[in-house]
């Protein structure tokens, strides 16, 4: 068993000036090299989790450990070095006036020497295939391209963990596909730990593990397979099932007998083909 790189222990949190707890007794841990998706409807507390993990807020009760360090006021800058974050709005996280300046921003903050900085900027932009756009200004880039630059900015800092806080929700289907496959590939090559916060269950289906949040509590944790077995319960939480599962459910409702769970269209097609034609 790998060791946990992020662990939350009975976290309770409420925003200043609010009477409601956004998070209630939330505990879970994420292991090195894992891809975990946190899903939930808007307002379920999933984005607040990301802010707590990064020390932008501190919990009222409970403890957070990042890479073995207990997160508090005095350690927050150390724990942040382990984490890179990509946010929802592509425009509001682009700090530099050009692509390369934006990637360099984080390196400048960490006092990286100039020669090293140049290498890391170019290297990171190559990894996200944006090295042809070094001097491009942000308003000439598409949303998907801006998010790729945001990922490069994260990679240049060489974190162990990358958090995607609804990073694809403002993109068109093309951009979304692009970002997800890029992160997937980076995770495999570099052994990054990925925490993706999303309400897109298609995206979550590709994770190793899913944590379902509802009203500030962990509703369920499991592999995509286990989570999608919940079926209508997920729909009741304001989520949508991946297409192959919905399709299989429709077959069952209409009286076509099917066994098992199908996470891909191919599996379902094969099942239909064999059970109905090849007997």
């Amino acid at each position, binding site marked *: 068993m790998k060791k946990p790189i992020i662990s939350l222990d009975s976290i309770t949190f409420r925003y200043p000036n609010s009477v409601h707890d956004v998070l209630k007794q939330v505990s879970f841990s994420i292991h090195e090299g894992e891809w975990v998706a946190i899903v939930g409807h808007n307002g379920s507390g999933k984005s607040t989790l990301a802010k707590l993990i990064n020390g932008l807020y501190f919990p009222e009760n409970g403890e957070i450990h990042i890479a073995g360090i207990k997160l508090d006021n005095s350690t927050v800058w150390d724990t*942040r070095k382990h*984490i890179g974050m990509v946010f929802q709005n592509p425009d*509001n996280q682009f*700090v530099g006036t050009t692509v390369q300046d934006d990637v*360099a921003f984080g390196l400048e903050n960490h006092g990286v020497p100039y020669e090293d900085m140049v290498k890391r900027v170019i290297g990171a932009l190559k990894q996200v295939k944006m090295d042809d756009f070094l001097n491009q200004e942000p*308003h000439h880039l598409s949303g998907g391209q801006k998010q790729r630059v945001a990922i490069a900015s994260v990679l240049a800092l060489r974190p162990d963990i990358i958090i995607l806080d609804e990073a694809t929700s403002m993109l068109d289907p093309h951009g979304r596909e692009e970002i997800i496959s890029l992160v997937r590939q980076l995770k495999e090559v570099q052994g990054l730990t990925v925490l993706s916060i999303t309400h897109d269950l298609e995206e979550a289906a590709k994770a190793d593990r899913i944590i379902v949040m509802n009203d500030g509590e962990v509703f369920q944790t499991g592999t995509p397979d286990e989570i999608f077995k919940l079926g209508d319960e997920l729909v009741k939480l304001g989520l949508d099932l991946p297409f192959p599962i919905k399709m299989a459910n429709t077959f069952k409702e209409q009286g076509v007998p099917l066994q098992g769970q199908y996470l891909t269209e191919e599996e379902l097609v094969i099942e239909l083909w064999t059970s109905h034609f090849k007997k």
Partner: protein
Amino acid sequence: MMEKMIFGRYIPADSIAHRLDPRAKLLFVFIFIGIIFLANNGWAYGAAAAFTVLSIWLSGVTIRFLIKGLKPVMIIIAITFVLQIFFAREGDIIVDLGFVTIYEEGVRQAIFISTRFLLLVFMTSLLTLTTTPISITDGLESLLNPLKKIKFPAHELALMMSIALRFIPTLMDETDKVMKAQMARGSDMSSGPLKDRLKAVVPLMIPLFVNAFKRAEDLAIAMEVRGYRGGEGRTKYRLLKWHGRDTLALLSLVGLTVLLVLLRG
């Protein structure tokens, strides 16, 4: 009209002036603004004008382009010229039409003042035409750096300027979007009495402010997460490099200063 105006714009090219260090260019323009006031006769103004023409030539910008692009400024200069002629009351009378008298000294002053104004506008335009806004920011930060000792926030100022530059196009798009959304709801910002037009600006300004604050908040978080903790201990990605040509440019100004002093009558 604004589209044809070049004041404050950058024109990409690869001239000597483009390649100068922004610090050299900033100092150059500041010093030039100072020494032009040394000129007090035709010869001195002639020398300053010749120096300016030479600078324009080295920047690859044509004088025609400058005059065309600075039309609104030219109009202001023309008005100053005329006012100066009519209001000066010194020296010999050269024209007396009864309702208006023109004095010799008036014409002299008018020519000098508009020449000075023109040269200043040309020189400052050259700075912005040959230097990207971000380089100007870098230059300013570097020049103001020594003032950090007296707690002058040079780094913060430069960062603010660069973020403002980065967000200008974004905010322009947003203005256009909100304006259209309100126009689709029947708002009319382009006709009617002034009072109504001013009122129509409120539905535009409030959403813009609200969105700008939201952006600022997001941006602050994004910066913090990427390790921003103020200017202390930061390295710079955009390096400025001082070359021989930069020293040469400043030395040419020393030459001009000496010349202007000698020519003073």
